[in-house]
């Protein structure tokens, strides 16, 4: 085996891939331009929508206004509430969106308040309408304020202090560090994203340089050269690994950028203080490397087996679905893997990613995952090399 030959194939595949417009679109334009623009757009329109419903005054109908003059005064004082007083039943107006809420004050309301009993109020609104939800929130706040006033009146009549209503004070202190908060936030979604991006990044190149070479008839020219089958497979696999890894990094970068842009437009992010240590990054790489190798080797093997690009794509679709499935399992909260489960590729990586991000370093899990994935990747590479020597695979049409 000669490293020079492996390098020759590696560089050839890399140059060929970079010169392919589809790679540039998939690797750079989509994550770094399309995602941020898309998220910014979504953020912008969300904000525009919520600003519209926040800015306009909510129109509400009050029935039985004369039974709670004090409350109606509070509502009238609010700039954001416009009141229509009517006695007729008007469910249509709420349904049509002419008004955003209907407040019904029963005739015994005043009496009940005076008797120091609970006074009942009915607020009708439509939860599927953004403007109606805003109206409900506004009316609620005013009612809460009015409730506070009634309470104060009642306790002062009993000669009690305001403190009477506060029998205990609970002070909560969150001891989670910024790193742990970031970790737990990332642990939910990051392993899944990493796995999907690695596979998606490897797929196109892996198929193009294996089944694609068969389809275009260039593979025969490699097979009659001085270069060995193993060298060809290794060169191709290393190229797919680099492309896959780069697309994952660019994908994550694009998504982070998109998330930050989208969030800042929609009103900024609070409480997320990013912190990730060098140690964590190193450990993540330790799990990442065999996973990238595994994805590349398996996809290269499938690509060599397939007759053409179309056939390869149909073989890869179920593999990709399985990957998505294993990734989704890892997103589900509360699930824990046990000993032998760490031998299952993809699933093991996503759980170890999760553990590392949460700051739980279990070396046995890391080592089992590392070795299992490396061994499977190696077997896939050997399989791919064997396929390259099989006449029925190379020349079937």
């Amino acid at each position, binding site marked *: 085996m000669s490293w020079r*030959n492996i390098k020759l194939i590696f560089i050839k595949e890399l140059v*060929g891939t970079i010169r392919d417009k589809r790679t540039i679109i998939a690797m750079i334009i989509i994550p770094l331009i399309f995602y941020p623009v898309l998220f910014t757009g979504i953020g912008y329109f969300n904000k525009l929508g919520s600003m519209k419903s926040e800015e306009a005054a909510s129109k509400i109908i009050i029935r039985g206004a004369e039974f709670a003059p004090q409350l109606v005064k509070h509502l009238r004082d609010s700039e954001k509430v416009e009141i229509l007083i009517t006695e007729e039943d008007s469910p249509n107006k709420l349904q049509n969106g002419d008004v955003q809420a209907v407040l019904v004050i029963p005739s015994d309301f005043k009496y009940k308040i005076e008797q120091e009993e609970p006074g009942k109020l009915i607020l009708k609104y439509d939860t599927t309408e953004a403007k109606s939800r805003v109206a409900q929130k506004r009316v609620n706040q005013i009612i809460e304020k009015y409730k506070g006033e009634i309470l104060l009146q009642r306790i002062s009549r009993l000669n009690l202090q305001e403190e009477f209503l506060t029998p205990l004070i609970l002070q909560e202190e969150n001891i989670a560090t910024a790193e742990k908060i970031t970790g737990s936030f990332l642990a939910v979604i990051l392993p899944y994203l990493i796995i999907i991006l690695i596979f998606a990044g490897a797929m196109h190149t892996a198929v193009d340089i294996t089944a694609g070479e068969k389809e275009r008839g260039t593979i*025969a020219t490699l*097979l009659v050269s*001085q270069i060995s089958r193993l060298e060809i497979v290794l060169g191709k696999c290393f190229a797919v690994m680099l492309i896959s890894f780069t697309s994952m990094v660019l994908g994550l970068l694009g998504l982070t950028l998109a998330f930050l842009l989208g969030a800042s437009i929609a009103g900024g992010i609070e409480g997320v203080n990013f912190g990730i240590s060098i140690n964590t990054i190193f450990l993540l790489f330790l799990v990442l490397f065999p996973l990238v190798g595994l994805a590349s080797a398996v996809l290269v093997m499938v690509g060599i087996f397939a007759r053409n690009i179309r056939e390869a794509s149909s073989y890869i679709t179920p593999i990709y679905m399985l990957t998505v499935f294993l990734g989704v399992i890892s997103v589900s909260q509360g699930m824990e893997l046990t000993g032998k489960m760490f031998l299952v590729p993809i699933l093991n990586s996503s759980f170890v990613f999760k553990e590392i991000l949460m700051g739980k370093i279990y070396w046995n899990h890391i080592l089992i995952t590392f070795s299992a994935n490396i061994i499977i990747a190696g077997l896939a590479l050997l399989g791919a090399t064997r396929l390259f020597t099989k006449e*029925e695979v190379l020349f079937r049409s």
Partner: protein
Amino acid sequence: MIQVEGMTKIFHDKKRGKIVAVNNLEFNCRKGQVFGLLGPNGAGKTTTLRILATMILPTKGKIMVNELDVVKHAAKVRSQIGFLSSETGLYDRFTPRETVMFFGRINGMKDKIIEKRRAEIFHNLDMEDFQDVRVNKLSTGMKQKLSIARSIIHDPPVLILDEPTVGLDIITARTVTEYVKSFRDQGKCIVYSTHIMREAEKMCDVIAIIHQGNLIAQGTLSELKKNSSSDDLEEIFFELINQGENLG
């Protein structure tokens, strides 16, 4: 240069069972000779050439290329051969210069030597004008010239050409046949498969007629004519095939 004794290749197909693609072939090809394999599609020409080029293994037989056994010394045999067929594609996203450099390198050549040889070949094949244009922008004729350049960059003593003019227009096809003749004059040993009678007549020093995996006749054109009632290769071809089928 090439000695083939008892070359047999059997494929196993799930639906059709055992298929004898080539059966007990015997032939030799010397230095400075064009050996023509003439036969219809499916006769076994491509299988024969793939075995000579070490792409597939023979089921039986002893096959030597430049004194090297194709089964035992496949890697060494590959350094001795240039292979060109209608199926050997080119990399669309590379230029002719890059293509030839790549194939020189994977055949173990040093860059300096590749560069010298490349300049010479590109000059001879009149390729200098498009040497830096990507392959996907080249015409069929330009591509075929590049395929030739690619297959001879490492200066192999043996050339294996599998229907190299298939699908080419008359001018490009002529360019190819002219080069094959010039390679013969340089003393290379050339195995050339074709199903075009005119081509075989014009180019080949020895013609082997192959049908359904069997070699039914071989000799120079005049030898073939002598043993036949006709003077025309096409007539000779059909006469032999009919005889072969009657015998079979």
